[in-house]
Every structure is written in structure tokens, then in C-alpha cells.
């Protein structure tokens, strides 16, 4: 009985961490169509912000929930103003530019902080589930991620800011004609996407490694998940994370992590073969 409960929790863990790593990318790539190769590095910066702040005495929850998104959001806006805004519409040119940015960020962090720093331990302790012991923090994380996505959905569908953002993405000229400044909207939206990515990095900091090159472990899976999700960025990401996270955790539990990873990729390939426009190309077509 407790094994079943354990598996359910493990699956939810897998889905929530995958969805979390994709949240910002869903906005930046899903909505803005900007290929941000520095996505992993934004997460890394979020992690570093949390760790440095917490080790300097700031409360861990403030570091994770407020400081990380703030710092990375600002860095995101700076990147957008200085580099990325020259390449809108040229999907593949943003690829080189953000690749250069990612290397630069890794280099800067290494130069300032060195190759490793002391991390932060997960708060909230642990609890027993039959013969197993699990971390309370991970459970809380599941809830936080769910809230986060609900929040993103509500902001982009129910608020004026969200309406402006979506409208500008769909038709910048029309938006300009209505008195909205598209470059401003892009900047803010990119900033929000970066902030979400920083938040993800911060929330994952207590349970992952904190080194300058940690971004590489996130970037490939994040892109595959978001793109497989399809044109409806947020809904697609949620569904794709759901499928991939479940598959990977279950297979890993039964066999090994290698096979779990491989099966995730195979499922992605099969899904795309069946739904060539991504998941939300066919299902939930008009969703966000």
C-alpha cells in the first residue's frame, strides 16, 4: 500500500520538477518564439542567488521566492535589451546569440564564485510513509509548482497585462496601432520568463548541485518538453511534463535511470510523430 503511495508521490515529484524547469521557457519560447539557449544558465543564476543570499543570512524562503526571480528577471531584461532584441523573428540567429550569452554567464559566475560553493540544505525535514522516508520539502514543491502554473495561466488570461502580452505576440502591428509599444511588451514578457526561470533555479537549489555548468542538465529536456507541448505554451508544457514526468519516474523505478531517460526521449519522438504540431496542435487547440 505504501509502495503505491510512494510511486504516486515520486511521479508527482518528477512531473513537478520537469514542469518547473520548463515554466520560464514556456513563456520565452512558447509565446515569444525566442530560442533561449541560456535557459539553463538562468536557472543556474537563480540557484546561485538563493544559495549566496541564504548563506549570507537571508531567510531561505525569501531567497527562493523573491530574490531569485528578482535578480534573474533583471538579468533577463538586461540580456533582452543588450542582445536579444536585435534578433526577434530570426529564430536561428537568437540561437547563436543566446549560446554566446550562456557561455559568458558560465564564465562570469566561475570567475566570481569559483568552481563550487557550499549549498543550502532542504528545509522542513522529512516524514515517514510506511517503510519509506521522504522529504517534506519535495511534497511542498509539488504544491508550489501547481500554484505557479495556475498563477501563470490566470495572469495571462485574466489580467490586462496578460491580454496585452498575448495580443502583442499575435499581432504586433495591430497592438502598436492601438497605442501599445511592442518593444516594451517584449521586454517585460522576457523579463517575466526569466524571472520564472530564476524562481525554478532557486526552488530546486536545495535538492540539486550548485556549480556554474549545471545548466546543461536542464536545457535539452526543457526544450524537448516545451516544443512537444506545442503551440499552446502553458497548457502544452503542463501536459507534456505530465506525460514525460510520469513515464520517466515509473520506468526509472522499475529499471534504471538510463532506460528512464531513453524512454522519455522515445515517447517524445512518438508523440511528435503522431501529433506533428505538438500536443496542443491537436488537443486543446485554442488554449494558452
Amino acid at each position, binding site marked *: 500500500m505504501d509502495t503505491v503511495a510512494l510511486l504516486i508521490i*515520486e511521479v508527482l515529484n518528477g512531473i513537478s520538477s520537469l514542469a518547473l524547469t520548463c515554466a520560464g521557457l514556456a513563456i520565452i519560447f512558447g509565446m515569444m518564439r525566442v530560442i533561449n539557449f541560456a535557459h539553463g544558465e538562468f536557472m543556474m543564476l537563480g540557484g546561485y542567488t538563493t544559495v549566496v543570499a541564504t548563506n549570507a543570512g537571508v531567510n531561505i524562503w525569501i531567497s527562493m521566492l523573491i530574490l531569485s526571480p528578482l535578480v534573474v528577471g533583471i538579468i533577463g531584461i538586461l540580456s533582452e535589451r543588450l542582445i536579444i532584441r536585435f534578433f526577434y523573428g530570426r529564430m536561428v540567429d537568437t540561437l547563436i546569440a543566446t549560446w554566446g550569452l550562456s557561455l559568458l554567464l558560465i564564465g562570469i559566475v566561475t570567475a566570481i564564485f569559483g568552481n563550487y560553493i*557550499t549549498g543550502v*540544505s532542504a528545509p522542513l*525535514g522529512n516524514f515517514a510513509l510506511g517503510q519509506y522516508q521522504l522529504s517534506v520539502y519535495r511534497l511542498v514543491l509539488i504544491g508550489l509548482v501547481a500554484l505557479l502554473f495556475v498563477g501563470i495561466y490566470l495572469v495571462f488570461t485574466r489580467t490586462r497585462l496578460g491580454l496585452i502580452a498575448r495580443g502583442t505576440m499575435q499581432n504586433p502591428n495591430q497592438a502598436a496601432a492601438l497605442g501599445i509599444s511592442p518593444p516594451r511588451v517584449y521586454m517585460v514578457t522576457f523579463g517575466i520568463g526569466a524571472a520564472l526561470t530564476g524562481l525554478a533555479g532557486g526552488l530546486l537549489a536545495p*535538492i540539486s*548541485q550548485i*556549480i556554474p555548468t549545471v545548466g546543461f542538465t536542464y536545457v535539452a529536456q526543457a526544450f524537448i518538453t516545451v516544443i512537444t507541448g506545442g503551440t499552446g505554451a502553458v497548457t502544452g508544457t503542463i501536459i507534456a511534463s505530465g506525460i514525460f514526468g510520469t513515464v520517466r519516474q515509473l520506468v526509472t*523505478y522499475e529499471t534504471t535511470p538510463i532506460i528512464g531517460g531513453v524512454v522519455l526521449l522515445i515517447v517524445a519522438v512518438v508523440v511528435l510523430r503522431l501529433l506533428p504540431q505538438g500536443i496542443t496542435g491537436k488537443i486543446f487547440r485554442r488554449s494558452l
Partner: protein
Amino acid sequence: MKLSRRSVLKGAGAGLGTAFAASLFPQVSKADDEIVIASLFDQSGGLDIYGTPMTMTCELAVEELNAAGGLNGKKIRLIKYDPQSNMQLYAQYAQEAALKEKVDLVHGAITSASREVIRPILSRYKTMLWYSVIYEGGVCDINNFVSGVGAQQWVKPAAEFGFKNRGKKAYYIGADYNAPQIIGKWLEKFSGDLGGTVLQRDHFPLDVTEFGPAIAKIQEAKPDWLATCLVGAAHMGFYRQWAAAGMLNKIPIVSSTFGVGNEHMQLTAEESNGIVSAQPYFQEIELPANKAFVARYHARYGSDAPYLNSVGIGGYLGTMLWAEGVKKAGTHERGPVMDALRSGDIAWDGPAGHMVVDPVTNHVIQDMHVAEVQNQTWNIFKSYSQLYPGDVIDRCDLTKTPDMNAHLEPIL
């Protein structure tokens, strides 16, 4: 200042062309009265956490030797290469060091994978190689000297401590490549000798970050202790998640690799207290030579220079051992140095204790220590003196078959 695209491109093109032309010639011609050695350790990319301290200690060794008058009266010049955790660059730099710069020694490679790339190259072009990292054992090559411990020296103390002091049932988890696989096999062999069992051996690819299912499986199996041979930054996630699940005090960890990536400093005290590791070197070793060395290291590189673990100090140990050979030979030519090193009486006392180069295997007889983490420092509580590198001694005897050139796997 407005730069026109044209002028930018002109400048860039000219710069690139000059750089390419320059790269075709040796940076400085090798003078007759100097010895040139090359260090080949990753200082960027994922492996920089090992490569940067190794380069620093290698440089420190060269500076110390030069300050003492050089070797046989000649100064040593160190060329530092950064292969950026990229195998292709390892091969290129090894070739460059051997053919273009014509160095007398390449001190390099961190992972076995990178060593196996450069070992055949340096053997072919007759340039001596020193490998100074703990590894799975088995190199049998007269051109390659190894100051790192092999698996047999490495695993025995951890296995003994685990089975005698923690319990008879062990669960082994390691990274998924050949070194941890071989270490797992040695653990099983020693478990048989000591009357214990290894319940299960699980291996994880180097980029796995989600250890939830793995931790659950370990909890199901209920071992007395957990033997870990995890490597790299991603696997830090395991120790974090293990501690987050409250397992640190329930199932003790005895590790072969913990500490090699300065994990004890990356984890907080609550996440790491009580973990035991067995290594040939800890910065906390109480020898006068070690205390003096650590002081010199921090004087040279600052008080926040990276903590010295058994990998980081390899840069120093290997260089100094090679230097002993050069001193004995009276020259830095490869042939005489090799003979001197293999004479059987190259012994040296350094920060890691007494080290003897063994002519049968080209490896080094040295001490091992078992220590426990408390508050992010190591407390050594047991030492093993002068362990012999006998991993593949059944098939490798370089005194009898000096032409042997292979990386053997132990038959267990």
C-alpha cells in the same frame, strides 16, 4: 565610437589569420638548457573542479624545484593546456606537446577516458606520461607512470571499515562508467573475504539529478550501510535528496569518491556529518611535510584557494616523483629517467607520506586513510601503511614484459 561592420570584420579577420599562423609555430623554441613539461588538466567545463587545483599544485611543484636550483642545474618551464573537458582537445594538446613543443613530460588526464585518449598518443611519440588521479587500476604501459591509487588500494580500506564497523549488508551505488563498475566488483570480492554481502549494485549515468526512485529502492532493501562511488556535480543531488529524506542518520554512508569533488564543502554540515571516506590523501593529514605544504599552497594561491583533496594534490605528487627520477638519472632524457624511476629505489616523502615507485607495475606504493566528515572537515581515524598496487599483477609485470601496452581490467 561608431564601428563600421567592415572595419570590424577586417580587424577580426586579420586577428584570426595571425592567430592561426602563430599557432603553427612553437610558442617559444625549446632551449637546450631547459626542461619543458606540459600539464594537461581541465580548467573549464564540468571537470574544472578537479583540473584547476591539479594545475595549481603542478605549478607549485615546478616553482619549488626551480627555486631549489632546478633539476640537474636546469630550470623547468611549464606549459599549461586547458582541454576544457573535451576529449578531442586532449588528443590535440597531447600531440602538440609531444610533436611541436617536444616536452620531456606530460602530466595529465583526469578521467580514465581522457587518459586512454592520450596514453597511446604519447606512447607512440615517445613522450613520458604521468597520471596522478585515483582510478580503477589496470594501466600496464612502460611509458605511463601512475601515482594515483588503483582500485585495490582504494577500495580495501573502505570495504574493511564498512563490513567490520557498520554491518554485513551493503548496498552499492555508483556512477555509470567503467571505474565505478570495477570498484563495485572489488567491493564484492572484499565482501566475500570479510563475510559480508553486497545486496545490490546500482549505477547511474553522470547526468541523473532525480534520485527519488533510487532512494526508495535503497530504503526497501534495508542495508546496514550504503557504499557510494558517485562522481560529478549531478550526483551531488543524491546526497542532498538523501539528507532531505532524513536518511543520513539512518543508513550510514561509506564512500570511495565522496570528498574527491569537495562534496563535503558543497554540502552543509547537516547534510554530510558522519559520512566516511577512504582516500590516499586528506588536507588534514598530521605530517609536518603536509602542514608545510598546505601553508605554502595557501601562501602562493591565497587563503581561499580550493581545498586540497586526493585529486588536487596529484599535480604536486606526480611532478615531484618524476623529479626524483630525473635527479637520480642525472639527465632529463626519457630513457635514463625511465630506467631511474624503475630502478626500485625511488622513494620520496611528501605531504601524502612515504611513496615508492614500483618497477613491476609503474604504479606507486603509498598509504591510505579513512576519515569521517564533521562540520565540513575530515577527521582521520585509521591509516593503512604502504598498500601495494596489485590490481592486475597476474598479467602485468613490466620487468618481464616491458613492451606491454594496455589498460587491463582485473579478473575477479
